[in-house]
């Protein structure tokens, strides 16, 4: 991925050399031309086209912000209700993610999901212990975490 970005930068600098014009618009046009060429020639690279990964990162960021909003309103809803109708607990979640980096991002995302908070990660990094505000839907929560977050993170890293 880094190699493709480097090549793209080189293409845009060559474009600026060809026009003898050292301005930001020229650089941007060159960069877009570079993206087009690398996209067209992407089957000669051992890895995927890097814009795919950039797109996945953007999607993950939007997911982060959306979860922050939803979870804040859920928590506020629970706080202002006159009777505390919560049944907290801790449940374990098996994860398929491997590297430390992926697990860190996943646990940050879990901290921002409605009603969940990562308490601990087991030593081998396969299990996350999560404190939930409402245990009634722990199954649902873990399924949701698996479906949306793990998939979104895997799209970025693999």
């Amino acid at each position, binding site marked *: 991925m880094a190699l493709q970005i480097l090549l793209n930068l080189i293409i845009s600098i060559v474009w600026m050399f060809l026009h003898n014009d050292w301005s930001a618009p020229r650089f941007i046009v060159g960069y877009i031309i570079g993206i087009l060429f690398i996209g067209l020639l992407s089957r000669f690279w051992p890895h995927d086209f890097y814009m795919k990964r950039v797109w996945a990162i953007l999607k993950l960021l939007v997911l*982060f912000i959306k979860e922050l909003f939803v979870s*804040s309103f859920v928590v506020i809803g629970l*706080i202002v209700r006159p009777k*505390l109708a919560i049944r907290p*607990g*801790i449940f374990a979640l098996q994860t398929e993610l491997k590297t430390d980096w992926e697990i860190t991002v996943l646990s940050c995302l879990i*901290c*921002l999901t409605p009603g969940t908070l990562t308490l601990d990660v087991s030593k081998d990094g396969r299990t996350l*212990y999560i*404190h939930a505000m409402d245990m009634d839907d722990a199954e649902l929560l873990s399924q949701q975490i698996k479906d949306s977050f793990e998939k979104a993170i895997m799209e970025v890293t693999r």
Partner: protein
Amino acid sequence: MEMISKAGELIIGLMVLFGALIGALSAFGLIRLPDVYLRSHAATKSATLGVLFILVAAFLYFMIYLEHTSAKLLLGIVFVFITGPVAGHLNGRAAYRSGVPLWNKSIQDDLKDASKEEQG
């Protein structure tokens, strides 16, 4: 133009008010909720969102009305966004490690068995 400027002011003002309201509600949650873990739920999520709202509104105000793009505010937004959940996680973990009990109405504790096994 006048109309747009007025509407923008109104929206920015509402954003600040909203952020402050969320912050106040999460402080209310800190008083009301029964144990450390539940309190850290309130502190991590709602407080983060409240601070973010206020910072974004300040950024927009400086950008539109004073024509000054403040990179420091953008950096502040990013830092709060990254460190909020991590701080909540570390608080909860430190509390659990030092043996702070869960609320008596908690119904499940998977971590207890796991940490027992670890200690042998």
